[in-house]
């Protein structure tokens, strides 16, 4: 299985600012997935990031709020923009390599 390094592990941000989360994979992957997990809830898929093309966003998520970069086959970033307290969640990246999906350890974001 893949090894994913996700940074930062946690952050506290002010309203109106942005946070960029990085996800580094030890293998080349076609697609990377970004999820949000609100407190006490299940995971919700934000978008799918393909290298060399724009990310595909799920219903309720837009590029202006969650811009994603995918510069190569092992790296992706998710930015959460114009932060509000409602954005306080855990954000996780995930990849699928051959057999099952592997998840990063998550970024716990608190907006104050």
């Amino acid at each position: 299985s893949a090894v994913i390094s996700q940074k930062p592990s946690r952050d506290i941000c002010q309203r109106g600012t942005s946070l960029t989360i990085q996800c580094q994979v030890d293998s080349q992957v076609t697609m990377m997935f970004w999820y949000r997990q609100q407190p006490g809830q299940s995971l919700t898929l934000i978008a799918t990031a393909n290298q060399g093309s724009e990310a595909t966003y799920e219903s309720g998520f837009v590029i202006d709020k969650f811009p994603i970069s995918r510069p190569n086959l092992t790296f992706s970033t998710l930015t959460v923009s114009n932060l509000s307290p409602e954005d306080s969640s855990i954000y996780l990246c995930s990849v699928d390599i051959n057999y099952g999906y592997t998840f990063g350890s998550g970024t716990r974001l608190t907006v104050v």
Partner: protein
Amino acid sequence: LAKTTQPISMDSYEGQEVNITCSHNNIATNDYITWYQQFPSQGPRFIIQGYKTKVTNEVASLFIPADRKSSTLSLPRVSLSDTAVYYCLVGEKGSGNTGKLIFGQGTTLQVKP
């Protein structure tokens, strides 16, 4: 993508076998059934995956009836460290495809001493 339904919570005691059943009535021909485990402050971790009949690994067994409209995750002799949320997911398997994981609510398993 097939929707899944699981019990919200289950309680068990150490040493018991735990069976968590998941319903997926609209499963497609190409779909696999995968179970994940999530501890607090961690990302989900792959447990087991199957297509039909029975699959067993060092952690769990997965039972899938012939109609594939449900599946049962079996955890033998649970311990306190098995306390976690367990997610049943249905989707296509393999890298390079357009499959994506859609999480349901999951089952919170509480193992008591």
